[in-house]
């Protein structure tokens, strides 16, 4: 029985492929993909490469059985499918960051720029603050530098981009990593194949430790 897997392309893809290969899945066609986006040659596993939020759209519509996607996307998109396994790759974290003169304790309704409005809103609700959120699609670091926002909430892996843009971390929010998500009905229809995949992945994870 073929499992149809939507893999988030880019950084997530590169960091998770070694784990998939260690779990016995032949990922050579993806490694040497060129511009190809769909890989149907393996009778056991069909892959597509898609952007993170689109992985969930394919999964929610039942077009794919399994998604491999960052937990940032799962939280922000309010994933309704089964988030079954933390693959522990693509690890990074959400931070609140701004210019060195930013004062988090300043009593004003702060303006926060982010690609992740839901995660940002939830964080500030938890600390009892109401903020104005500006949704930015990319290069969020620019917002406090040009005066669009007081601070940003964004994902940081090493912190290099923040440092190079003279931005400072003021708070650590939640951790992010790549997860394996399974369509609820596909889990019933393809139980044996999904069980085997997860067992192989968990075995590969243990041998990596």
């Amino acid at each position, binding site marked *: 029985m073929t499992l149809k897997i939507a893999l988030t392309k880019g950084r997530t893809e590169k960091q998770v492929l070694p784990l998939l290969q260690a779990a016995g899945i032949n990922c050579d066609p993806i490694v040497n993909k060129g511009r190809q986006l769909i890989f149907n040659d393996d009778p056991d596993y069909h892959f597509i490469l898609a952007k993170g939020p689109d992985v969930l*759209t394919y999964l*929610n*519509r*039942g*077009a794919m059985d399994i998604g491999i996607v960052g937990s940032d996307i799962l939280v922000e*998109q*309010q994933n309704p499918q*089964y*988030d*079954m*396994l*933390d693959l522990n790759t693509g690890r990074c974290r959400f931070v609140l960051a701004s210019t060195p003169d930013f004062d988090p304790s300043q009593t004003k309704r702060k303006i926060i720029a982010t690609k992740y409005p839901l995660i940002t809103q939830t964080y500030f609700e938890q600390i009892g603050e109401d903020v104005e959120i500006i949704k930015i699609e990319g290069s969020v670091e620019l917002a406090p530098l040009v005066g669009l926002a007081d601070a940003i909430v964004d994902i940081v892996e090493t912190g290099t981009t923040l440092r190079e843009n003279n931005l400072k971390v003021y708070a650590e929010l939640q951790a992010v990593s790549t997860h394996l998500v*399974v369509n609820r*009905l596909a*889990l*019933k*229809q393809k*139980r*044996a194949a999904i*069980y085997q995949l*997860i067992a192989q992945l*968990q075995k590969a994870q243990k041998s990596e430790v």
Partner: protein
Amino acid sequence: MSNKTLPTGTRDEFGTIAMVKDQVIQTIQQNFKHRGFKKIITPLLEYRDVFQSLAPQAYQPYQFIDEHGDTLVLRPDMTLPVARMMSATGIDTPIKWYYSGDVFRVKKRMSGSYNQITQAGMEIIGYRSLKAEWECLVAASEISQKLGIADMTLELSHAKFVPNVLAALPISAPMADNLVQALYDKDLTQYQALLEPLVNDPFYPFLKDWPWLFGDFDAVLDQLTQLPKIATLESIIADLRATKAFISQRFPNVTVTLDLCVQPPQTYYTGMVFHAYSQDATSYLFSGGRYDKLLTNFQQTAQPAVGLAFDIDAIVAQRHLPKAPQETLIYFEADQWAHAEALQARTPNSNLCLADSFKQAQQIAQQQNAQLINLAER
């Protein structure tokens, strides 16, 4: 906004799809009617409070404010309005209802999902016996056969199985809450971390595999041998076994599976829960179960109830749509009306051509690639 565009999440249905959908609804309703069920029609608009027992994240409704400031919704569910009606009218039980209609659930914009979903279903109110579940399942299996669904899998579960196991576990209430949430979410990473303190517990061999306690009926029951004896589970398992045996004997083509780790669809479920799907489906064909406390949302006294609903749109989406047959147009003079109607009644896929001249009728027939019968020349 435009006077030509539809709101997000809605669609027009016409032609072959609309005809097939109508046939599916008729097939379902005829079955319930032949079983002696009574028809119920409830309004599209209800007060929001009718649906307060629904999990809000599951069904976001369309909401309006009426002239008194009360919140109305387009119904997101068909069962709660039946319960509301039963509690308000004092209708004698037992009673069996059938219904069809649309429910409205706001989904994420531009995700390919529709916000208006057609359901057809039934409610049996007033019977505590397992026979109520069986009539539900027999009717649903018969309907599935009539609809030509060849590879139906019927999944049985029970709303009380997980709570009864949890009650027997030697863990604190907060830990039980976390464990059951991880179990229901199938979050294996979190679930396995929570189990670590229980590695030496007699329940551990069962608990470690609990998130996988679904699938082949007998294989799932075999896994239960690892579970220390819990008296409250005996009648649950006996009912599930009896139901499996009954359905398998009546409908050998239906595959019956078991899921003993799934979250009930709503908090008001109290007993057996059932879902059905085919191997290629992307949605369940029907879902239902027992909810003996449903009416307590509206009145003091409980009433036993069992029901299920077919997802008409999911069924239509899986059907092979027939090619539209060639139409026949019947052209006639006004004084030939009775003759034309008689001919139309015995000619398949025909309709009366209402053109004023034969030339006009020819143009219409050509445009529609239809055959044309000219009664005027006879």
